């Protein structure tokens, strides 16, 4: 009786743990150990940080914690940073930059925009 319980417990554990090894093909892709793309400079993370910073700045200014001059200066700094990061990310994504070449004009100010843009970067009109 005792032997039976011990044996069955051991067998159940081995079966549960070992099952994927018997069926390696099924698990090779599905559980993907392949790492995400190298992101040595943490570009995507930096992009989110800068976006967050811009949102923050606006709110700090609205709640009266920032002087207008400081606000303008820092906003410009972060916008420049954001542009640089986005450029570097675009360089990583060849497919995307191809699509980006499709162009259409803004209905209001007629500036050329990429097809993916939702708003005009010059006048803010909806595209």
């Amino acid at each position, binding site marked *: 009786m005792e032997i039976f319980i011990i044996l069955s417990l051991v067998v159940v554990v081995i079966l549960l743990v070992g099952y994927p090894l018997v069926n390696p093909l099924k698990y090779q892709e599905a559980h993907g150990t392949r790492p*995400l793309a190298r992101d040595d400079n*943490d570009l995507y993370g930096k992009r989110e940080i800068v976006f967050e910073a811009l949102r923050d700045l606006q709110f700090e200014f609205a709640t009266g914690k920032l002087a207008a001059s400081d606000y303008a200066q820092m906003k410009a700094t972060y916008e420049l940073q954001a542009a640089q990061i986005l450029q570097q990310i675009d360089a990583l994504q060849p497919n995307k930059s191809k699509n980006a070449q499709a162009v259409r004009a803004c209905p209001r100010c007629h500036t050329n925009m990429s097809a993916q843009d939702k708003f005009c970067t010059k006048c803010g009109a909806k595209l």
Partner: protein
Amino acid sequence: MALAQIAEVGNLTLALGLAVSVYVIVAALFSQFKQRGEFFASAKHGIYVVAALATLAVAILEWALITHQFRFEYVANHVSSDQPLLYTISALWGGQEGSLLFWVWLLSLFGAAVLIQHLGQRNHLIPWVIAFIAFTEAFFFSLLIFISGPFVLLAQTPVEGIGLNPLLQDPGMFIHPVTQYLGYVGFTVPFAFALAALVSGDLGYDWIRTTRRWALFAWLFLSLGLLFGMRWAYVELGWGGYWGWDPVENAALIPWLTGTAYLHSVMIQEKRGMLKVWNLVLIMLTFLLSILGTFITRSGVIQSVHAFGVSSMGPLFLAYIAAVLLVFAYLLYLRLDKLQEENRLDSLWSREATFLLNNLIFLGAAVATLWGTIFPMISEIVVGKQITVAAPFFNQVNGPIFLALVLLMGVCTLIGWRRASPQHLVRNFLPPFAVSIVTAVVLFVGGLYDVYGLIAFAASAFVLTTVFLEFFRGTRARMRMYKENVAVAHVQLVNKNRRRYGGYIVHIGVMLAVIGIVGSSFFQSSLQQNLAPGEEATLGPYTIQFQKLLMTRESNAQVIGADLIVFENGKQIDTMRPQKAYYPAADQMTTEVAVRTTARDDLYLILAGWNDDGSATLKVIINPLVVWLWIGFIVFIIGTLVTMLPDPREAKARARVRAERVLVSA
């Protein structure tokens, strides 16, 4: 099935737990190095299997406790047949072996939870994470198998068990260890991710956000552990206070301090890409201090009211801590070049700078408390005799530190991220400063002359005003920016930035608690008097009239109580009955105090002794404002829950980053 066989099955679950944990380490690492998905899948199954095995072990031990299988040594030592069911269940974490099993059980469940959380997601940190969790599981399984077995059988079945220590037979002690352990064990997860980030070299955006809610979860439960522990000490230990700088209390406080520092400094990494090394070190410290806390509580190295068992676990715990520390330090050294700061401080007058100061102060408090806590151990090694550092040391050192933290809490709220201009700072500073001065003057005129008390209350007023101003200004800004009405703007203010405003709610809770702590520690008054039936004692506005002594029997104790009538300013307001209980099974006496709580103060009565002539010795204590400590804790917990709510914007950003990285790798 015979008892011996059930014990065998219990031991088998532990042995299999150890074996599978070791297998998970090997399989997870192998899958990483050789890029073999099937081994990763197998390791994941292993994590679930360990959770099932630990659950089975807990179930067996609970069964033995509840059905009074006294042949189990653990059952005989921690349960008696007249013990209430609630405390029979809680005996699982009432002793060393049981609580170690409880520890590994929680960890195994957390391991499974991490996997479920990441179902269907590709996260290359997970193999390292489960390898470390399995390593820690293996350590605790080894303790249970080789040092401190919960399924050891006695040669003969005793007729009756010793029973749970009567001090632990209290609802507070049912819940306190559970929350404390959830906190201790919970910090394993963020630390495992930190370690995984170090190993994989992916130290940027992802790990700190993946673990944010885990760290908050663990921190919340450490806080709850402190709350229930303090509440238990207050009502059950019967000395009139809630905090005595006992080694085990300190062991719970120290990781809470470093954890609090961590929760603040991660914000700087998230917002500015700064303090990367510092955050890794803080989470490492918090995790290892949690392990140390478990060890201090469960080994009895430092004599304390909590240390109910002494055993030879010391060297093993130290070896585990040393191993983790070494590996961590080595990995950190390897990755130092990847941990360069992305930004510099824009200004010393910025929230970042105040956060840095806050971190240093929290760490200072943690180091001071740790030093005082392990000093007896060190003195025993060096001088050969235990020299205990008592409460005055901790109060003197930590009092000013905590006051500085309170002030900083106010200043920090007033300063914006990145840079504060002097004129804005002054403008923001003035209203709360004025409120704190008015508070001090009003209290002084009202008859409060204690300098420290005045400073502390004025500081509390300062901080509370800054927080209310923050809500006020934020709401106003929203009303302007989004044309919302007052109610909507308030709700949306918190809703759109749950972390920031949840954090402010936490600060309100802390300040309420500070008011309670200051009131009850600076302005406590007490008296002890022997009263014959019909005689009265007066303290402050209260007069207590002693009626008679009363003997009763409970299932497992003899209880003697003093019937009292309480008058306030000559008017009868209540009857109270402080008691003492004698537990014959454990040959131990406990004090059951009677407490009457109002917003102004607690009337705290202790039956200190009684005489054959029917007279009783009563200790009467008035603890001003102490109820605000508990209310503050409740507010604190609500605030923490708000910060833990999922943040849709953050979740979206994280998903975006992941998706793009997957796209690029394809």
